[in-house]
């Protein structure tokens, strides 16, 4: 589709394996297309400038801060949100580790945190503390980092 000549267009976004028509301008941040057009609210708005990571999703398997990606750049790509992380009816191992370690407090940042961690473990199934420090840069104002680190190691141990 030629986005450049169209202020408004129907876009086909592939989210969690389903193709969804969204009526948005191509420069709309992917975050808002996911939340407002696709209606998937597990992905959170925290800053809008790719600082906090609350909006992290996977685009073709890579962790992306969706507030900083335009819909036009996500066209045709496989987008996975927190709602689509679990497959085959069971929880993703990161989600299971999060529950076992009672990680969330307010929980608002945790969708993004879990998506970032899931992407990390796909790349690096046994991350060291230093690997975690470098890869996980999401903000959590409740301060769950101690449990996040424990849960990452716990999830890694199940791989």
């Amino acid at each position, binding site marked *: 589709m030629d986005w450049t000549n169209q202020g408004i267009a129907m876009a086909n976004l592939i989210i969690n394996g389903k193709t969804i028509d969204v009526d948005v301008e191509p420069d709309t941040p992917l975050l808002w297309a996911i939340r407002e057009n696709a209606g998937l609210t*597990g992905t959170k708005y925290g800053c809008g400038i790719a600082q906090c990571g609350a909006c992290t999703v996977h685009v073709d398997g890579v962790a992306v801060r969706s507030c900083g990606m335009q819909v036009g750049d996500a066209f045709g790509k496989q987008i996975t949100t927190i709602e689509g992380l679990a497959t085959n009816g069971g929880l993703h191992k990161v989600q299971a580790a999060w529950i076992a370690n009672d990680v969330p407090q307010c929980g608002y940042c945790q969708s993004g945190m879990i998506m970032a961690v899931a992407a990390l473990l796909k790349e690096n199934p046994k991350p060291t503390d230093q690997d975690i420090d470098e890869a996980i*840069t999401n903000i959590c104002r409740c301060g769950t980092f*101690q449990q996040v680190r424990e849960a990452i190691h716990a999830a890694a141990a199940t791989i």
Partner: protein
Amino acid sequence: MNQMPHLSRRAFVVGTASAGLTLGLDIPFGGPALLRAAEGSPEINPPEINAWVVIRPDDTVVIRIARSEMGQGTLTGLAQLVAEELECDWSKVTTEYPTPGQNVARKRAWGDFSTGGSRGIRTSQDYVRKGGATARMMLLQAAANEWKVPVAECSAANSLITHTPSGRAISYGKVAEAAAKLPLPTEVKLKDPKDWKIAGKGVKRLDTVDKTTGKMTYGIDIKLPGLLNAAIKDCPVFGGKLTSFDEAKVIGMKGVKKVVRVSDSAVAVVADTWWHAKTALEALPVVWDEGPNAQVSSASIATWLDQGLDSATPAFIGNQNGDAKAAIEGAARKVEAVYSYPYQNHATMEPLNATALYTADKCEVWCGTQNGEAAFAAVLEASGLPADKCDVHKQILGGGFGRRGQTDYVRQAVAIAKQMPGIPIKLLWSREEDMQHGAYHPITHCKLTGAFDADNNLTALHLRLSGQSILFSLRPQALVNGMDPAAFQGLAASGEAAIGYSVPNLLIEHAMRNPHVPPGFWRGVNVNHNAIYLECFMDELAHAAGQDPVAFRRKLMASHPKHLAVLNAVAEKIGWDQPPPQGVYRGIAQHMGYGSYVAGAAEISVSDGNKIKVHRIIAATDPGYAVNPAQIERQIAGSFVYGLSGLFYGGCTVKDGRIEQSNFDTYNSMRINEMPKVESIIMPSGGFWGGVGEPTICVAAPAVLNAYFAATGKRIRAVPLRDQNISFA
């Protein structure tokens, strides 16, 4: 222009409304009476045993929670207390919030909804436990009636009632309907906490699964048929006014429905999506009348506060014994230092939002709030409708930290919805709006003077605060002859925030200076700066006296055994009497707040003279009773992230009357790589109920600053560290 702040009517109304006073609501003092729904009211589905407990035929136990869950675990902790007395099967427990409207309709059956000051559990534990206990007694009675046996022959455990002589058993769900019709017992005996089986244990939170799957609904996620979205901009200068805006420039933009004046200082764009609303708002030409506050800067505020440090100017006395000024005058030696602490923004991860639906005869709001009743009062006032036509549907909060105890965003949502009757309006603040229209941790400066006799005994301490009062702006009715008692948190002579030292001559005073920047309750509130002032200065005094900082403190703490116990606990665990590992330096601090005694000891290393690695912090807390130790550990470690973020990265500065910081790029927050290992010592000594969400936050910063002195010989007396070119390693 730093004189009396422009105190908007809003500030006064919010303050008084939170006590229900402006609305004439009949709010009883003390705990709520145990009340049951009136016959025929919608709440009376028969399995409601009492206001706190509903038991369904399938044995599901619904525990009603009046306080708000914002991450601090109160929802789970309160449910544990009810379940403990109820003797129910914990695996069958679920929770629900009654609405503020139901609370009013039922003569405040659930008491106070406000969730701040670390009060969620400690000020309602008595009556929620009684709620559980009376429900258990009624279920037992119902079973005894069914079996036609004396109730004394029956016992309850794990949602099952057993008639001991015959061995018969029946589950709660089977007798709930009969129990609900029995009279409420008046004599209720609560368990001794040493017999607790569910309370006092680190059981898992009840709200975790939905928070890991994206299913949890926060205010920002509300969906209603026909809902429109609003983005708002308030005058960037506090106290300024909205002069005009040019709606024609944006009304044709995609999705835009309306541009509305929200108050005398704000404008909002309403659109199909929030992204469209925000995009149009940014394009909207707006003219502000910034008013005289536009002259104020951080420098002008600092000058004004420094003047308040002069002993010749008036001040409120919060604590005194002996004659500190005379003792300092005649001392063999004195030590003096000036400290300061800046404005801080709450920056809850979920930006402020509220959804309002207004019709001519009804107004409903969906939002996260720390004070459902204050939000309800705000809805009444903003809508102009009576209490029986309004309600607030509380949502799980994406962080509160004190910010969501205020109702500005609720009021705004109703003001917008009122201009578009019949259409649900979701108002969402941008992060930039949130950063620039906060309810900021108050700014203070502090001058401390200590005096020694010839034998290096501390003979006098004079601590003089100059700065902002939260109560002055938000709860003027709580001032005592103009004085803000909360300004002396952790420095008071007695009570739930008492100083832990006895000094022969002591003077603690507060020169109130209220700049125009609106203050608020920021997690920990006044203990954040008071603990830095007192505990860093204690470290200065110890070094001036040539004494070990722990030994120096202990000499002053003989009459404060609970303060001393937590200090000793962290000193012992960190191995204070042994030297730290090579290149590692230690600092220590203790304080009291919210009824709990707290202490912290930090181990840090410093590279290049200005890069700090905080390796670990030992933290001790004595909250009297520990309802969920696992959640207390999380509150301690989590509060350190909040407090240390404020120490290293925080600080909101004022230029041209407005806050300069606008997002996490200019107001940063700690990440996982900066997180120290936090080891908690939870040492409840019983006999009192202290809070756990806030108190411990205050010892992390002074412990780290004292360790920084140990490492470098340099005293840091101003926050944030980024302004002093000091960062995390």
